């Protein structure tokens, strides 16, 4: 045991660090529930900005929803937008400063419900921004009400017997929807429930920021995430549930790369 302790002392040294919290995240503790996917997405975006060295040239737009305080956690220039209007604000900022990197960070209540028109028109105009869309199939902040992305038959506080598609309509696959517009250059869907998926998301996020230099269109990244408080599950259960129910409906993968559709088997 003593030898083991000696070993640990040898391992835990500054020069052996392989992973640590990026300095672009502030020291403030996230306001999210334990196990929430928002934290991972925040970290991945900040790591990408750190690696590209564009901290002073990036402007983020935070939404309304659970992630409304994103500006407190991200150590970059941030702007808060009215509910759902983040793509419109991002458009204005990008047109004033065409050389800056601009991204919006939005949830499904913000992007797919109240901000549908702003999102679709920003995608259609082909603004050179990146949109990060966190989809957990529920309104997390307000208490787990039904969202446009809630799965058929899924229980929420406003659909206690499950979503009835005859009464409440079908869920919107907003990512497939914007992929059909000519203004989008890169459209993908990722998730953050395993380490492999986190690495893939990081790759996609890097591509989204690099695409802004090309000025060829909008990059849209959907992240399928969990909401363990809203779904009334433990974080591990929520990830399992997401894998079994959300991912068959919202399949992970690239939909459009460099303006061309990716062929799927």
């Amino acid at each position, binding site marked *: 045991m003593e030898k*083991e302790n000696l*070993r*640990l002392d*040898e*391992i*835990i*040294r500054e020069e*052996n*660090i*392989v*992973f*640590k*919290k*990026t300095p672009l*995240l502030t020291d403030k*503790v*996230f306001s*999210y*529930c*334990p*196990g*929430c*996917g*928002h*934290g*991972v997405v925040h*970290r991945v975006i900040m790591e990408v900005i750190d690696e590209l060295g564009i901290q002073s040239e990036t402007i983020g737009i935070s939404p309304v929803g659970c992630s409304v305080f994103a500006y407190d956690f991200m150590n970059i220039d941030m702007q808060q937008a009215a509910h759902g209007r983040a793509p419109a604000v991002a458009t204005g900022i990008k047109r004033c400063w065409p050389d800056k990197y601009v991204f919006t960070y939005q949830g499904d209540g913000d992007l797919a419900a109240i901000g549908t028109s702003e999102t679709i028109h920003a995608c259609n105009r082909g603004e050179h921004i990146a949109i990060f869309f966190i989809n957990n199939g529920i309104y997390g902040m307000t208490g787990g009400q039904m969202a446009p992305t809630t799965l058929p038959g899924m229980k929420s506080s406003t659909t206690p017997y499950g979503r009835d598609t005859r009464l409440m309509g079908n869920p919107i696959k907003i990512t497939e929807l914007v992929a059909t517009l000519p203004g989008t250059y890169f459209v993908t869907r990722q998730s*953050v*429930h*395993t*380490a492999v998926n*986190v*690495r893939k998301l990081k790759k996609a996020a890097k591509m989204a920021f690099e695409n802004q230099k090309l000025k060829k269109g909008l990059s849209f990244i959907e992240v399928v995430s969990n909401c363990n408080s809203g779904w009334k599950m*433990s*974080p*591990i259960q929520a*990830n399992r549930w997401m894998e079994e129910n959300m991912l068959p409906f919202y399949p992970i993968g690239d939909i459009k790369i460099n303006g061309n559709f990716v062929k799927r088997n």
Partner: protein
Amino acid sequence: MAKIKGAIVIDIERCKGCELCVDACPTDVIGMEKKVNSKGYHYAAMEHPENCTGCVNCALVCPDAVITVYRKKFED
């Protein structure tokens, strides 16, 4: 033969005890501490440090960025 050994350090006060790292660890290194931090969460800790390979899986899935990972190669 060279052996690669890893270790993790957890920022106890930031940890919210979601246990996602316990689930993600392929060598069952991490467990939950019986003690709680100042917010009342059972925080994650290294239960079997001898098995850690420094694969970074736990740090990648951690939603609160509390895990720092170290890795060293031993020649013996």
